[in-house]
């Protein structure tokens, strides 16, 4: 008899739920035992299987280490190995880990988690192979093409197998591509500074987030929605956080980066349209979609029109505006997490709230207070803030009635 992951989850939730029923007098202790006895086999299998997340983490780490090892081996034995030898190592190790991984997960089925990690390793070696070929032929023209092709060619495999690890790899590699490509364009346009890339990543984060939400509503793609949503929210909030500092001095955008705007906007618009199609919706989907759309529109509007308004007063107001926007983002995310009982939103919201408090404390009080008092007060603020946040977080999470690890 084989069990699915959902079966284990069901049993764990059932056990917890029955404790409540017992407390409320809905069932009697022996009834609880009798019900649980029905799922004894499931419990034993669950205990034997051990902590699944740990196995996945360990084998993914293993895959990454081996991938790095292959690259280093070839790089450090450059002259000893002829070109065909290096290519042979790349191709054989890539095909072997794909093949063996597929066998373990889908044919023999005895080591599914290790099999999945081996497939991830295959995709890592594929990317490494591309860079090694570029080195062998001394290809330097337009190096961002490397990560672009890597990400695009991993995506079909990721969707076929519905692996979170492969989706995450593809998203991260494509974000790296965006950064490299934007940096290269920045070199050709005279007015650009690195800071002008922040709005671009802000937009990319929102688009990823939107795409993730579409995935979550689609039953077949639900399982791969979390990398999009997690990376999307993190990128959005990190960019939003950086925007709260006054980094700009009138250079909010660069026309050199406008070429990316239509693509990101279309991706996001597509996600919004699909989300508005009739069907079963999760709670709070309208404010979430509207909020994301408002963020996207305000960033695009600022990028297009802000640089022309160069008066100092406008710049000052913009910092204030971006701070307010950021605060609204945090409040919105936490409320959404609350309504939807989604701990990830609450955790991310509280994390960036804490970062904001630290940053604003430095902004406002560094000049005003004597140094010693500054540090003492800052330390106390952090300590009490930490306790307060942790208590609040636990309260919120326990009100969801979900185990933190399970969520």
């Amino acid at each position, binding site marked *: 008899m084989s069990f699915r992951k959902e079966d284990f989850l069901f049993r764990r939730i059932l056990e917890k739920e029955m404790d409540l029923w017992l407390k409320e007098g809905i069932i009697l202790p022996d009834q609880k035992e009798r019900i649980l006895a029905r799922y004894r086999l499931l419990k034993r299998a669950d205990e034997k299987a051990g902590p699944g997340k740990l196995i996945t983490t360990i084998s993914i780490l293993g895959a990454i280490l081996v991938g790095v090892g292959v690259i280093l081996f070839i*790089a*450090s034995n*450059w*002259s000893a190995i002829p070109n065909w030898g290096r*290519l042979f190592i*790349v*191709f054989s190790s*890539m*095909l072997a880990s*794909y093949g063996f991984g*597929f066998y373990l997960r*889908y044919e023999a089925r005895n080591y599914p988690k290790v099999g999945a990690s081996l497939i991830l390793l*295959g995709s890592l070696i*594929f990317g490494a*192979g*591309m860079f090694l*070929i*570029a*080195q*062998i*032929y*001394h*290809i*330097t*023209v337009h190096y961002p093409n490397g990560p672009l*092709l890597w990400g695009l*060619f*991993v995506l*079909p*495999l990721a969707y*076929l*197998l519905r692996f979170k690890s492969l989706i995450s790899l593809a998203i991260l590699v494509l974000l790296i591509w965006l950064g490299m490509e934007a940096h290269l364009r920045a070199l*050709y346009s005279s007015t650009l500074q690195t800071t002008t890339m922040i709005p671009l990543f802000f937009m990319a984060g929102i688009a990823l987030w939107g795409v993730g939400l579409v995935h979550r509503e689609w039953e077949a793609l639900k399982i791969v929605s979390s990398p999009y949503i997690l990376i999307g929210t993190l990128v959005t909030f990190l960019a939003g956080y950086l925007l709260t500092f006054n980094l700009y001095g009138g250079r909010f955008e660069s026309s050199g980066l406008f070429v990316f705007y239509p693509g990101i906007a279309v991706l996001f618009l597509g996600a919004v349209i699909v989300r508005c199609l009739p069907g079963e919706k999760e709670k709070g989907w309208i404010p979430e979609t509207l909020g994301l759309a408002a963020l996207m529109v305000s960033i695009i509007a600022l990028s297009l029109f802000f640089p022309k308004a160069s008066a100092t007063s406008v710049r000052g107001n913009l910092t204030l505006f971006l701070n307010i926007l950021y605060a609204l983002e945090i409040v919105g995310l936490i409320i959404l997490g609350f309504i939807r009982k989604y701990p990830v939103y609450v955790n991310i919201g509280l994390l960036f709230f804490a970062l904001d408090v630290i940053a604003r404390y430095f902004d406002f009080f560094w000049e005003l207070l004597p140094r010693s008092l500054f540090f003492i007060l800052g330390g106390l603020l952090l300590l009490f803030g930490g306790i307060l946040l942790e208590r609040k977080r636990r309260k919120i999470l326990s009100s969801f009635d979900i185990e933190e690890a399970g969520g």
Partner: protein
Amino acid sequence: MRWKFIFFVLLQVALLVGIIAYRQYWVATGERILLRTAPVDPRDIFRGDYVSLRYDISTLDLDGLGAKGSFKSNEKVYVILEKNQEGIFSAVSVSRGLPSGKRFIQGRVQYETTLSKWEITLKDDSENLHELKPRWFENVKRGDRITFCLDERGNVLHFYKEDADYRPKCSGQSLSGTIEAIKEMKSRVLNVEYGIENYFVEEGKGRAIESSRNARELRVEVSLRKDGKGIITGLFVDGKLVR
């Protein structure tokens, strides 16, 4: 599932093989030429395990080549090459359109700039005249008293006005006198990138090549495609192939 998986993996293999085949075809069928490298600012040359290369043709003297009009950044250009007696190729002209019937290499404009060269005539205290070519010479007029600091070969390292507050000491020889004549020649210079600026080597080997580079002659063999795109096929230090 299995066949789909195999299909997508084969797609990845096909991409890698495609890149290899395309480059290999280029190397096999392209026309081989030799280019001379130019010294690179030593602070910037070595990053990781590749050698950063500049060529004589990386900076083009537009007036000398008779090119009209100005060039935009990132614009595609064709540099027409001619072989000299040593077998090295150098630039004879530059064009925006595809040249026909000539040997050329394709590149992209980094930026166009104006460079000044100076020829200074200095009269020393014993009334002897000296010709000097400093790399920079501004805020000085005829009749000013100047001290030049020189290296062993007589090149100007730096200079200062004798009535200035800041007078950096010369570590080697120096030359003082009155400025007789200042001749400034401005020239338009085009910086071009050809996609052959990096040469990958074994870890740790790049630094050795770098350190011997400016002293010895470094030549690069490039294979040219029909449309003028180049790919490095070999690196020669004093005529010896480096692997």
